[in-house]
């Protein structure tokens, strides 16, 4: 989230789209209720289903799954055509005035940006960039009239997104679409703010990242980023998915959003040189210029005393990547027989990866599989025959499987980072059952055994293992406190300031990432977490729930990264002179000598407004980006592409139906179904009574929602002869599930032009292990394709057929 849960109460308009907070995040949704009750906020819900969020909304608009960019692009067109933008914000805080290179263009007939290569399904993005002037800075036209400036290109790009076309593509009735535009436009003034709340309904598409970008662009046009009650807010799915992302347990990351070194970066100097973040305008902060300090401090955390200037702090020991080994690529390689071992830590990929048949085949080719989990997962039992639910022959599967019992939340202590970016410590409340151990103890034990083997027997390139710092008091059982101290970081030698005084003594915990250095005199595993465990103690464990400003900031509850800042980009809540846009939205302001207000300023504390440094201090431009430059795989402006399986052709450009830059592996392209055989849109979702595949292990949740079902409209039920509570078989080109039908008014027929489109809702919580009734993996049905940027799978829009069947014999 740019903002945070309790800040939602400051919103004047709340748009829930691509999520269903009332059911999936019920206790966070209370802040929407607060905003409605005490701030007269209006709740707008745009969703294929009339969800419980929709049930309490002021306005609901249906939408066909996978057409969010068409809808949101239409909103952009509405705002620009009706002059409903926050002009001063757009002119000063976005790249609207930047001139784009002459080689950039978009061809609306072909549906392609310049630079496309169909062979590699990727773009040469060189021209998606600013004109650079002779002074080395980006060229601007602050009048916004140059036809090559971002503002004019934006206007041109979205002029095609007329209400008529939007309505025929999305199936949202035109009057309802325009009503949503009206609500959104009421916040274009600095007096009122709007928040976007989204979750997997936006991410799980072949164009998921661009869904979110389009919403972020709307927020920038309205001036809703950096202000209380505004922002673009990812609700997120697991209690520590934010923390695991921050710590970089992802194929392309180093903690704190640093990048994995690539094969093309042969040495440390080249690696750092590619990340110099030279400002694109005079006077900009461009905070990533401190990259070297974060990276060297990370390598010191990784290799300790073995990381020295003369060995580039161990840079060569650290792995380089040739491609990003995201989970879809991992299972593709496994399917090709190129993976021998696999470790799942609290992860059930058999059920959470697309196309279950492919995953079964892939897992069957492994030599060994390790599941570290509190629960018995389907993945750990993938080789076991469960009839139709998992029809395999164990004798033919040669994979050696280990199931290691780990503790759960109640039995360990440590910090979790919530979607508000706040680290909150928790304490152990129970003893582990049986022989369960913490994830920390399991991995420490395994590491020490592997290291001992290398010490004893030698082996291939043992140096990275032998040089890793493992200087914990008890190496077999590092304590959570020791590890959070490492994440925070400490001084390794006395740190001397510019005046020659010792600012920090050797061995002391650091209090801010501003203290980090690139000469090996500091260590910190994750610069964003510096401040969470200081000389003052464990800040993540602080539990002062006071809210001095009354704006829902709670500055002493845990520790929010970065720098305990609760609302990102908050400098933008004030105008270029440092004065709040309005009294209603005042948050931080310039008092003549420094920035003061409810929160830690997202800006230099004493950086005067007349220095003209932009509020988006991480960007070399100092401003936010309506035009994404080279950073997105499929284009600098989001464009509507159909899901890879769609019931209709792409009305914007029939020649280019789906995301031209999405990666599709050989064999998976052939597995996409066609609307002739699979005429209905399938979409997966969650229920308020269940959490993924965990709660089917729980008695109470399994009583509340005991059995798998699919949800269809009354019209479709009538058409197909399906009765409420009757059995159905739902089939995609990859597999099928059998379940009971819930016939409901919650899903309606959509009219896309003259074509009626029906949606089949597939809740995903059942499986073949646990106490709930056995059910099928929803991912029997889903296609093996991900978002072009993140590779999040396309679970929210695919094609299925549905037919009534006779039920199983009781």
């Amino acid at each position, binding site marked *: 989230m740019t903002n945070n849960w309790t800040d939602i109460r400051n919103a004047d308009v709340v748009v829930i789209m691509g999520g269903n907070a009332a059911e999936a995040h019920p206790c966070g949704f209370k802040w929407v209720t607060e905003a409605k009750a005490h701030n007269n906020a209006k709740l707008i819900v745009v969703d294929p289903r009339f969800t419980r969020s929709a049930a309490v909304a002021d306005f609901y608009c249906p939408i066909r799954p996978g057409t969010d960019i068409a809808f949101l692009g239409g909103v952009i067109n509405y705002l620009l055509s009706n002059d409903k933008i926050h002009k001063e914000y757009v002119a000063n805080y976005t790249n609207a005035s930047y001139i784009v290179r002459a080689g950039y263009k978009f061809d609306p007939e072909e549906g392609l940006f310049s630079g496309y290569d169909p062979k590699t399904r990727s773009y040469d993005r060189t021209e998606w960039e600013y004109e650079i002037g002779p002074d080395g800075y980006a060229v601007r036209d602050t009048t916004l009239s140059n036809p090559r400036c971002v503002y004019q290109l934006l206007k041109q790009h979205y002029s095609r997104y007329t209400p008529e076309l939007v309505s025929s593509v999305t199936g949202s009735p035109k009057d309802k679409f325009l009503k949503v535009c009206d609500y959104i436009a009421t916040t274009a003034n600095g007096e009122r703010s709007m928040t976007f709340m989204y979750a997997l309904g936006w991410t799980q598409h072949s164009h998921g990242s661009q869904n979110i970008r389009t919403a972020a662009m709307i927020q920038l046009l309205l001036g809703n980023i950096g202000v209380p009650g505004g922002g673009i807010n990812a609700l997120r799915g697991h209690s520590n998915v934010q923390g695991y992302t921050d710590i970089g347990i992802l194929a392309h990351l180093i903690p704190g959003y640093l990048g994995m070194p690539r094969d093309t970066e042969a040495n440390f100097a080249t690696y750092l040189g590619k990340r110099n973040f030279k400002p694109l305008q005079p006077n900009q902060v461009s905070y990533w210029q401190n990259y070297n300090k974060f990276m060297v401090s990370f390598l010191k955390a990784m290799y300790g005393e073995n990381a020295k200037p003369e060995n580039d702090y161990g840079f060569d020991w650290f792995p380089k990547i040739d491609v990003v080994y995201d989970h879809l*690529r*991992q299972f593709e390689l496994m399917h090709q027989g190129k993976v021998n071992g696999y470790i799942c830590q609290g992860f059930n990929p058999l059920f959470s990866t697309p196309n279950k048949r492919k995953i079964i085949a892939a897992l069957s080719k492994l030599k060994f599989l390790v599941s570290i989990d509190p629960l018995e997962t389907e993945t750990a039992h993938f080789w076991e025959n469960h009839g139709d639910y998992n029809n395999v022959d164990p004798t033919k599967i040669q994979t050696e499987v280990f199931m290691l019992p780990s503790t759960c939340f109640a039995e360990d202590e440590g910090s979790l980072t919530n979607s508000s970016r706040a680290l909150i410590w928790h304490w152990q409340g129970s*003893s582990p059952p049986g022989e*369960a151990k913490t994830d920390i103890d399991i991995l420490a034990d*395994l590491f020490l055994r592997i290291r001992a083997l290398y010490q004893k027997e030698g082996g291939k390139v043992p140096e990275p293992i032998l040089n890793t710092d493992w200087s914990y008091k008890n190496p077999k059982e590092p304590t959570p406190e020791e590890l959070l101290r490492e994440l925070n970081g400490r001084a390794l030698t006395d740190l001397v300031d510019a005046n020659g005084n010792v600012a920090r003594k050797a061995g002391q915990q650091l209090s801010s990432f501003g203290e980090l250095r690139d000469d090996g005199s500091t260590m910190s595993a994750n610069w964003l977490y510096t401040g969470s465990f200081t000389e003052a103690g464990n800040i993540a464990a602080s539990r002062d729930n006071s809210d001095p400003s009354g704006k829902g900031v709670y500055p002493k509850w845990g520790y929010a990264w970065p720098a305990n800042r609760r609302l990102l980009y908050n400098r933008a809540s004030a105008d270029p002179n440092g004065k709040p846009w309005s009294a209603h939205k005042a948050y931080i302001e310039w008092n003549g000598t420094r920035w003061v207000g409810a929160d830690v300023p997202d800006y230099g504390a004493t950086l005067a407004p007349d220095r003209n440094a932009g509020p988006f201090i991480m960007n070399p431009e100092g401003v936010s980006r309506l035009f994404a430059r080279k950073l997105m795989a499929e284009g600098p402006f989001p464009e509507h592409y159909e899901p890879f399986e769609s019931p209709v052709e792409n009305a914007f450009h029939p020649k280019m139906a789906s995301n031209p830059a999405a990666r599709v592996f050989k064999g998976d392209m052939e597995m996409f179904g066609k609307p002739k055989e699979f005429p209905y849109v399938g979409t997966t979702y969650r229920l308020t009574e269940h959490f993924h595949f965990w709660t089917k292990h729980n008695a109470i949740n399994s009583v509340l929602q005991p059995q798998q079902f699919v949800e269809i409209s009354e019209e479709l039920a009538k058409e197909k002869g399906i009765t409420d509570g009757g059995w159905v078989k739902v089939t995609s080109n990859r597999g099928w599930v059998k379940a009971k039908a819930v016939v409901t008014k919650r899903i309606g027929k959509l009219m896309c032009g003259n074509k009626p489109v029906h949606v089949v809702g597939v809740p995903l919580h059942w499986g073949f292990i646990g106490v709930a009734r056995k059910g099928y993996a929803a991912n029997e049905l889903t296609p093996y394709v991900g978002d072009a940027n993140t590779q999040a799978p396309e679970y929210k829009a695919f094609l299925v057929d549905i037919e009534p069947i006779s039920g199983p014999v009781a």
Partner: protein
Amino acid sequence: MNIAFSRRQFLVGAGAGMAGTTLGALGFGDVESAYAQAIRPYKLAQTMEARNTCPYCSVSCGMILYSRDDKARSGKRELIHIEGDPDHPVNRGTLCPKGAAALDFVRAKTRVPYPMHRKPGSNKLERVSWDFAMDRIAKLMKEDRDQNFIATNGAGVTVNRWVTTGFLGGCAATNEAGWLTYKFVRSLGLVQVDNQARI
């Protein structure tokens, strides 16, 4: 702050004393003791409290966990009740149908009780010791790493990666477990590393 005797223990004790005094004063001495025995002690009176966080979605609601001495296992604590933490500014004591039933997750019959192992082609998982499991996994990992580790690429650049074993991280583990996980995987050279954020 983290673990303390329940505030209710104090209230229950005080309440029982009050009732005894009132009945005693009215001359019902025998009734009083019979009545006192009939009252089932308040179940949270003998518990320890720990502040914790709901394991499910990223609202990460505050919880209070109540545990008592485990009668079956000496020296261990058994979780008997969970409720929302009223001090937590986000959830303010509330829990949803998932969080309110989280006790069932902790006590699920399908918790893995001890390390288990399935031999190739076998139809069952069998109990093994931690030592057996960890030695065997360490050996399998080292064998694979030694056979397939890539020290330099075709262009002669040092790349030090191991592509034939993968690791998926679980997003319900703590940041501290996450950092140790990170150190573990990159130290070995693993690059097939991802977590639920990708999904």
